[in-house]
């Protein structure tokens, strides 16, 4: 994921672990574009369990409402930005 540069389409992984994560449920499996890269931060998924938390890149990803909510989207072309750690993202063309 270190080669990701805007504008790059990414898909949020369809992961559903039972523990503490920061990736909103409603974005799992959704495709967006990288709006910008943010700094590396200690991984909150490890900090939550008293681990040191390896530094992971945080990315701001922009999603269209139609992608998130489908036909239920009230304003389909509005966008939503969410900050998601690199290990939760994969290239959008991946199967």
């Amino acid at each position, binding site marked *: 994921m270190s080669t990701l540069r805007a504008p790059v389409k990414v898909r949020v992984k369809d992961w*559903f672990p039972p523990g503490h994560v920061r990736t*909103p449920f409603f974005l*799992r499996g*959704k495709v967006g574009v990288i709006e910008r890269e943010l700094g590396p931060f200690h991984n909150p998924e490890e900090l*939550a369990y008293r681990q040191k938390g390896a530094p992971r890149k945080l990315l701001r990803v922009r999603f269209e409402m139609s992608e998130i909510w489908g036909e*239920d989207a009230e304003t389909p072309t509005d966008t939503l930005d969410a900050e998601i750690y690199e290990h939760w993202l994969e290239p959008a063309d991946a199967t």
Partner: protein
Amino acid sequence: MQAHSNSRNVTVMEHDNIRRWHDMGGQPAGQIDLDQHNFALWEKRVDALMVLTSGKGYFTVDGLRRVLEDMGEDTFETMSYYERWVQSVNQNLLEAGAYSLEELSTKMAEVTARGETYGDCAAGGE
């Protein structure tokens, strides 16, 4: 939920089974209570305890949230905000070894013995 219908591998029904209770973004919600309210002294102290002990490095906000989430949906309905916080702070401090259950029990008995009211209990402190 309709919202998940375009996700690739996981069916809508499966989604609803694996969504953790606290992760409620996009879920139907009722009216939001926008009333302001004051905090009780003990609630301010819980807040201060969180700031002080996390500042000391015993745990982070991630650990606070992890325990709050693991406490489950029922506690969200039955306990107040700072009641949940103090339980999570305590759990994190125990895990970090800030004090033992024996020390906590001894202190709780000591405070209980001071009196019935919050003022009595606090007044006898250090």
